[in-house]
């Protein structure tokens, strides 16, 4: 199997709480290789700039078009402002259209993220910790099953899960979205590798000999050491639940339980139905409002997910 680089964990242990990206001896910031630092290259910057522009143009398009009225969306150049500056009215209309159903979808999404991603993170953290720090009967089997599960396409499970849940009477309830979101094999794997490096076994042994219960040892000694890994897993499970489309599409019939992703698509599809009102300006503004929280979270918590990804990057 693969071995994960322990760098961030080790660095985290050295400094206590934060997640510095790299351990000593590994490059940090500008490369310190040998004497000469490589000269910056305009050509390379421009070449990479092409990818940068490609990445940002759709987002720029979204921001620009969120300022247009339904009328000026048509027949104006997509990448520049046109017509009256309607961002304010668009936002207001998005939030109030159809008795404020967008706000309802936003609250649903928050519920799914808090319960689903929060629960998934909690399960992954305690599970990963258990796998990393205890030897128990069946540990190898757990490893094999969970690693195997990563390769199973999530959507292959969706139909049977729907049929099971519908027998249990869970479909069309928030539970049908929350329960399957609770399992993140990737999160478990990430926490496992993180915990095996970040929590010194001697420290646990010592606490146990002192008579501390396992729960207390975990809560008071291990949990603080695991903090950087927890934030990373939380970010990735948050993105997964916030962006989830297929699972709620299958499970939910009632628009009152839709998350934002399903709701936006139903607004978009509305234009295609007979007699449906085309509300592309609301679809676009709603899309912008949907991505803002995640973009903000990613920008603010950069250092965490970067250290987490470094922990997940596999070396042989």
């Amino acid at each position, binding site marked *: 199997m*693969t071995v994960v*680089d322990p*760098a961030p964990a080790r660095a985290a242990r050295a400094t206590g709480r934060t997640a510095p990206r*790299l351990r000593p*001896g*590994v490059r940090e910031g500008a*490369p*310190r*290789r*040998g004497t000469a630092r*490589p000269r*910056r*290259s305009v050509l*390379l*910057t421009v070449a*990479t*700039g092409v990818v940068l522009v490609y*990445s940002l143009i*759709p*987002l720029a*398009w979204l921001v620009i078009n969120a300022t247009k009225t339904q009328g000026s969306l*048509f*027949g104006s150049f*997509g990448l520049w402002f046109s017509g009256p500056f309607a961002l304010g009215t668009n936002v207001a209309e998005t939030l109030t259209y159809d008795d404020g159903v967008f706000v309802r979808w936003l609250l649903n999404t928050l519920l799914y993220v808090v319960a689903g991603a929060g629960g998934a993170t909690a*399960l992954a953290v305690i599970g990963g*910790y258990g796998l990393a*720090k*205890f030897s*128990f009967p069946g540990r190898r089997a757990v490893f094999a099953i969970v690693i195997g*599960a990563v*390769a*199973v*396409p999530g*959507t292959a*499970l969706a*139909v049977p899960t729907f049929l099971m849940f519908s027998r249990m009477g869970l479909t069309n309830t928030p539970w049908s979205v929350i*329960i399957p979101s*609770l*399992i993140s094999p990737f999160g478990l794997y990430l926490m496992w590798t993180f915990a095996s490096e970040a929590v010194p076994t001697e*420290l646990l042994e*010592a*606490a*146990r000999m*002192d008579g501390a219960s*396992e729960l207390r040892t975990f809560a008071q000694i291990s949990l603080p050491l695991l903090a950087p890994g927890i934030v990373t897993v939380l970010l990735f499970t948050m*993105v997964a639940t*916030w962006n989830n*489309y297929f699972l709620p599409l*299958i499970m939910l019939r009632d628009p009152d339980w839709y998350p934002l992703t399903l709701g936006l698509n139903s607004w*978009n599809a509305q234009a295609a139905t007979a007699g449906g009102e085309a509300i*592309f300006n609301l679809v676009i503004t709603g899309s912008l409002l*949907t*991505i803002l929280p*995640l973009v903000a979270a*990613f920008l603010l918590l*950069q250092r965490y997910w*970067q250290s987490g990804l470094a922990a997940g*990057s*596999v070396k*042989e």
Partner: protein
Amino acid sequence: MRMAQAVIATGLPATTRRARRSWRGWGFVGPFMAVFGLVFLAPIAYSLYLSLFRQQLVGGNAFVGIENYQRALGDAQLWAAFGRVALFLAVQVPIMLGIALLVALAIDGGRLYGASFFRISIFLPYAVPAVVATLMWGFMYGTRFGLVGNIEDALGVALPDPLAPDLVLASIGNIVTWEFVGYNMLIFYSALRVIPTTLYEAAEIDGAGPWRVITAIKLPAIRGAMVVATIFSIIGSFQLFNEPAILQNLAPNAITTHFTPNMYAYSLSFSGQQYNYSATVALIMGLLTMVVAYVVQLRGMRKEA
């Protein structure tokens, strides 16, 4: 720490510690495995069961053995859909991973102006839900108020319609590439950052140039990350659903209900009520995905040795 030191001084019999070690790990792993059993293992077992039966108008489920599997093997729609995602996999994944690798090497090489701005901006699309990404690109593809229409008007030329049947797969490939280039770039970049500096120092003493450093040090060092990224991309390609399903509103003629295997399984279940056959299709796709992912992993690891 203080507690730890105090404890080492007192000590406990080793036997007690070993005895306590045995089952208590399950207290931590148990909750995960319980939910895992409910949402992973039970559905797999249930779909295995479903795939062996057939729903009948009269008399409920009838055991049919491998009949559903035989039907799947001869199902032209399923294999056309499979061929489509296989083509997608063969073209889109190398392009996406190639761009991601080049950008990661460029950012890691320290020769870019504003490297961290590049890193964050190119990663940003990962935070955009597939629904929003598809709607955005779908609008931009459109001739009504899209960029394609703008360019046609501005230049007075007729561009091929990105949502036409023969181009729509490429247009979906572009959306998926846009969403995941940054994510894969970051996986490669993170792996590059943990290469020990001593290797570079040694290379410099040996007089190795930048290309030699890349081919002899960097690429071999991140092979594991490349295998992982490839496997995730393979799984993603075989599961392709969101982008074509959402684009269907804008291109109903180009995207059929059996455009990808997953869309096929979905429409079998939710439009056709053919749950048993749908479960069979899902199982076959899952199995094929696992086989391909496993082969890639074996090949990737063998080259390592």
